[in-house]
């Protein structure tokens, strides 16, 4: 059973069909996930429009980028959406990465109220390490694989 499934998935004969099926599945999965993940953003925006329905509900904004620092508020960006937040009373600077738990405001013109927040001072080093990792991954790929008879093969 397992042997025939392996043959079906990995044989040259079924290759174009398997590849098409996988690409189709991944596109569908990506589309489904984008719907789920944007639904929460829409929910939060809807809450700010009719705050009575979700008064004091919390939003979790993990690893957001600080876009603006005002006298009483900061603006952070999560994905493509900006959130104005009050109550972060630590020193915060622009382009810093911050995780915030905040409550939804009572009216659309008010800022979100921060309940707790976490600074990520080592984030820049993590990005640098990941860039180094990208270069190493490129080197591993070029150094460890070669093309032979229109197929990729491992060296050694």
């Amino acid at each position, binding site marked *: 059973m397992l042997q025939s499934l392996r043959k079906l998935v990995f044989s040259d004969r079924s290759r174009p069909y398997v590849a098409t099926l996988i690409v189709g599945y991944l596109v569908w999965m990506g589309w489904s996930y984008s719907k789920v993940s944007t639904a929460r953003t829409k929910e939060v925006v809807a809450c700010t429009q009719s705050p009575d329905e979700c008064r004091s509900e919390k939003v979790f904004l993990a690893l957001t980028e600080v876009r603006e620092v005002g006298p009483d508020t900061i603006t952070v960006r999560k994905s493509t959406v900006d959130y104005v937040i009050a109550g972060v009373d630590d020193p915060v600077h622009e382009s810093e990465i911050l995780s915030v738990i905040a409550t939804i405001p009572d009216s659309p013109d008010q800022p979100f109220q921060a309940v707790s927040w976490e600074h990520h001072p080592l984030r820049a080093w993590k990005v640098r390490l990941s860039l180094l990792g990208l270069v*190493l991954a490129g080197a591993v790929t070029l150094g460890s694989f070669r093309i032979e008879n229109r197929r990729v093969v491992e060296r050694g």
Partner: protein
Amino acid sequence: MADLVTHMATALLFKAFAGRKHTASFTLGTVLPDLAGRVPGIVLVKLVGFGLPIPEGLTHAPGVLHMPFGMLPLCVLLALVFPELQRPKIAANFFGGCMLHMAVDLLQHHTGTGYPLLFPFSSWHFELGLIGTEATVLLAPIVAPLSVLAWWLRSKWDARRG
């Protein structure tokens, strides 16, 4: 996600103990979830920052390649470019690397979120929350040379055994 240097180091450490065959595929597997599932999303969000009208949903879509039920078909897809007889082992090593990547990522703590491990079958999120999201930055300078040393010692040992 932990940083890519730590992910690659864990791959070398694993292969130093489990056997060196297909180390390159396994190592590539440990960086694949971030390369395919995170980098495109980060680039798209940056492009939005430059004023390009990219829908928010599109910035989230590549994230499925950082989930087990997205990683598995991706590994099979990538294995299809290899010769027919090698494909099962290459796919297994790619996916093994991806699972090691997930195991390291699950150690982290994110504010109010976790990893959707069972999507598209469930929206259940999980993470162990044992270390901070930047904890590996301090570990990488120790783990990376150790893993290279362990892998080098293993290759010497293998060579001596013939």
